[in-house]
C-alpha cells in the first residue's frame, strides 16, 4: 500500500482529482478549470479510506470490551459463522468512529435541533462518536445498578435480555434514548459484518461465505444465463482473493 499517513490510506483529494491539477493554471478564477481532455496523473486513484494501523483508534480499552460484548451477542457464534466479535465488528465500528463518519463530517449539522416528526428522520444533535460514548457509559451505569457488573460481565443470556430491553425501549438510559442507541449499534454491527473486509470487519469474508455472496467481482457474463443454479464462486474482496496466492 502506498500513501500512508497517520494510518489513513487514501490519496488527498487535491492530488487525486484530475481537475485540481489545473488549479494553478486558472489563477483568475480559483475554481478548478477543466479545458481539454484531462491528462493522466500516474497512480491517480480515489481509493477507500481505511486504517492499516493496529490498536483501538477511537474506543478506550473499556469501551472496546463492552462493544465486543455487545456484537458477540448481536451476531452470536454458531454453526453458521463466528461471532460478530471474532468477525471484527467492534474493530470496524472503532475505525468508522475515528473516520469522518464518527463526526458526521459530510452531513448538515446546523441547528436548531428539534425532534420533529418520525417522517423527518434522525434529528439528533449527537454525532456517532457521542452516541457511543454516552450510550456505552449509560449502559455501563445501568448494568452496574442492576447487576453490579459491567455489561461484559454478564452471562450470554443475561446480555441478550438487556439487549432485547434496549431494543424494545424497556430500559431508560441516561443521556440517550435506549432504542435509538440500540439501533445505532445494531446498524453499525451489521455494516461491519457485511462490509468489505478492508474496513476491519467481515474477517476472511466470513459473512459473504456464509450467505454465498461472491463479493467484489465485476464480471458475471459467464454466469448470468445459469438460472437457478448454485455457483459456489470464490469470494473476492477489495483487498484481493485467496485464489491469487501462488501454489507450489
Amino acid at each position, binding site marked *: 500500500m502506498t500513501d500512508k499517513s497517520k494510518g489513513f490510506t487514501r490519496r488527498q483529494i487535491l492530488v487525486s482529482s484530475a481537475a485540481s491539477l489545473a488549479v494553478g493554471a486558472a489563477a483568475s478564477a480559483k475554481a478548478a478549470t477543466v479545458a481539454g481532455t484531462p*491528462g*493522466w496523473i500516474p*497512480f491517480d486513484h480515489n481509493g477507500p479510506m481505511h486504517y492499516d494501523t493496529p490498536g483501538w483508534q477511537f474506543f478506550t480499552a473499556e469501551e472496546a470490551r463492552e462493544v465486543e460484548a455487545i456484537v458477540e451477542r448481536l451476531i452470536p457464534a454458531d454453526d453458521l459463522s463466528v461471532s460478530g466479535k471474532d468477525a471484527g465488528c467492534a474493530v470496524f465500528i472503532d475505525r468508522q468512529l475515528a473516520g469522518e463518519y464518527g463526526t458526521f463530517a459530510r452531513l448538515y449539522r446546523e441547528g436548531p435541533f428539534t425532534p420533529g416528526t418520525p417522517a423527518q428522520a434522525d434529528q439528533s444533535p449527537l454525532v456517532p462518536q457521542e452516541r457511543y460514548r454516552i450510550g456505552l457509559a449509560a449502559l455501563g451505569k445501568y448494568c452496574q445498578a442492576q447487576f453490579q457488573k459491567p455489561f461484559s460481565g454478564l452471562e450470554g443470556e443475561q446480555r441478550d435480555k438487556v439487549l432485547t430491553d434496549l431494543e424494545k425501549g424497556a430500559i431508560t438510559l441516561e443521556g440517550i434514548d435506549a432504542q435509538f442507541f440500540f439501533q445505532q449499534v445494531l446498524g453499525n454491527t451489521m455494516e461491519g459484518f457485511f462490509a468489505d473486509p478492508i474496513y476491519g470487519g467481515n474477517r476472511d469474508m466470513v459473512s459473504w461465505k456464509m450467505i454465498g455472496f461472491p463479493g*467484489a467481482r465485476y464480471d458475471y457474463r459467464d454466469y448470468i444465463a445459469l438460472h437457478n443454479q448454485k455457483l459456489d464462486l470464490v469470494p473476492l474482496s*477489495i*483487498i484481493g482473493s485467496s*485464489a491469487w496466492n*501462488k*501454489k507450489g
Partner: protein
Amino acid sequence: MKTTLSLCAGLLALSLGTANAASGGDSYNLVQKGRYLATLGDCTACHTQPGKPLFAGGVSIDTPFGKLVGANITPDPETGIGGWSFEDFQNVMSKGHAPGDKRLYGAMPYTAYTKVSREDNQAIWAYLQTVQPVHNPVETNLLPFPFNLRSSLIAWNLLNFEEGEFKPDAKKSEQWNRGAYLVQGLGHCGTCHTPKSLTGGDKNDAFLAGADLQGWVAPNITADPHAGIGAWSVEEIVQYLKTGANRFDIASGPMAEAVEHSTQHWKDEDLMAVAVYLKDDPRTDWPKPVEPLAADSPAMVAGKAIYADRCSACHVGSGEGIAHLFPKLAKAPLVNAADTASLIRVVLAGSRAGGTEAAPTAPAMPSFAWNLSDENIADVLTYVRNSWGNSASPVSSAEVTDLRDSLNER
C-alpha cells in the same frame, strides 16, 4: 449574439491575415501545404507547450543524456528564428546545423528530416513565417557536461548521421515511396520506434523494431507477425493512426500525443501510404517466438485468477478487449514485446488512451499499484503474455519492484 458575432469576425480577420502574410502569388497554397507538413512532422510536440502560443518553444524533452528543451521557432527576431533565411532553415533540416555553426542534438530529428525534400522545406518555411512572433527566450541545452558541448556532436554525426534527401525506389509503387518518405522523413517514426545505440543513434539494421522510451516502450512496428504489427491489415493501421485505436490496440502515453497532435490530421492517402510501406518489409527472418508457459505453472494459475477478478470486466476473458475502448491483449505486439516496461507501467500507474475527433472517448486504465502486489502484477502479466496465442518471457516480481521504485522517484 454579440460575442458570437465578434468571434466570427475575428476568425475571418485571422484567415485573411494568414493569406496576406506570405509573399508571392501562390503563397496561400504554399502556406497551407506547409501547415500540413508541419502537422506531419508533429513540430508542436517539442516546440509548443500546452496552452502556450504556437511554436514558442519551451517543451522539455528527456533524453538518456539529460534534458533538452524545444526551441522557439516563431519568427521573433530576437528569441525565435526571425533572423534566419530559408537556407538557414534548410541547413537545420538537412544537416542539423543552425546559424552560427550551432550543431543540433539528435532530439531534433534531423537524422530523419534530412530525407525531407527541399521543396517541402520551402513550404514549411513559408508557413513558419506566418506564425505569430512570440518573444520567449528558451535555453535549449540543459545537458550536463560533457554532452552540453555541442562540439561533441561532430563525432556523433560521424557515427550516427547519413545526410541526404529521400531517394525513391524505382522498383516500388508511388504509394510505397510516399509511405517510405513519410515514415523515414517528416513522420520520424524511427526516432521513437528504432532501438538506439550507446550514443543514442538509431540502430538502422533494427529499423522500427521497438525501443525503450522515457519509461515507456515504443513497440515494434515492423511486419514481424508475432512481435510487430504483421497481423494488422493496411486498413487497421490507417484506423489506428486516424483514430488512435483499432481492434488490436489503443494509443496511450507518447503515442497518444502523436495521434492527437499529428496522425489524426494526416490525409487518408498519406496514412494509407504509410501502412502500405510498413506492411512491405523486406525482412522475413523474424525471431522465432518462445514457447508459451504451461497453463498449470503456478504463476499462470495465480495470474489467471487475478485476471478474472481485476481485468476481464474490461479486457474480456478471452483477451479480445473491446474495440475503441479496452485494448485487445491477445496477439498484441506490446504484450509480446521482450521489453515489459510499458506493460508493467500501465498496470502500476494507469494510463489514459489518446482521444481523437473520430474517437473522443479517451478511456483510461486504472492504477492498480495500490491494490496488486509486485508478485500479483508479475503473475497476471505472465498469464497475459502466455495466453490466447501470446508467448513471451514471464515477468518477475523483481522487474515490477524496480519499475515501481523508479516511477515513485519521478
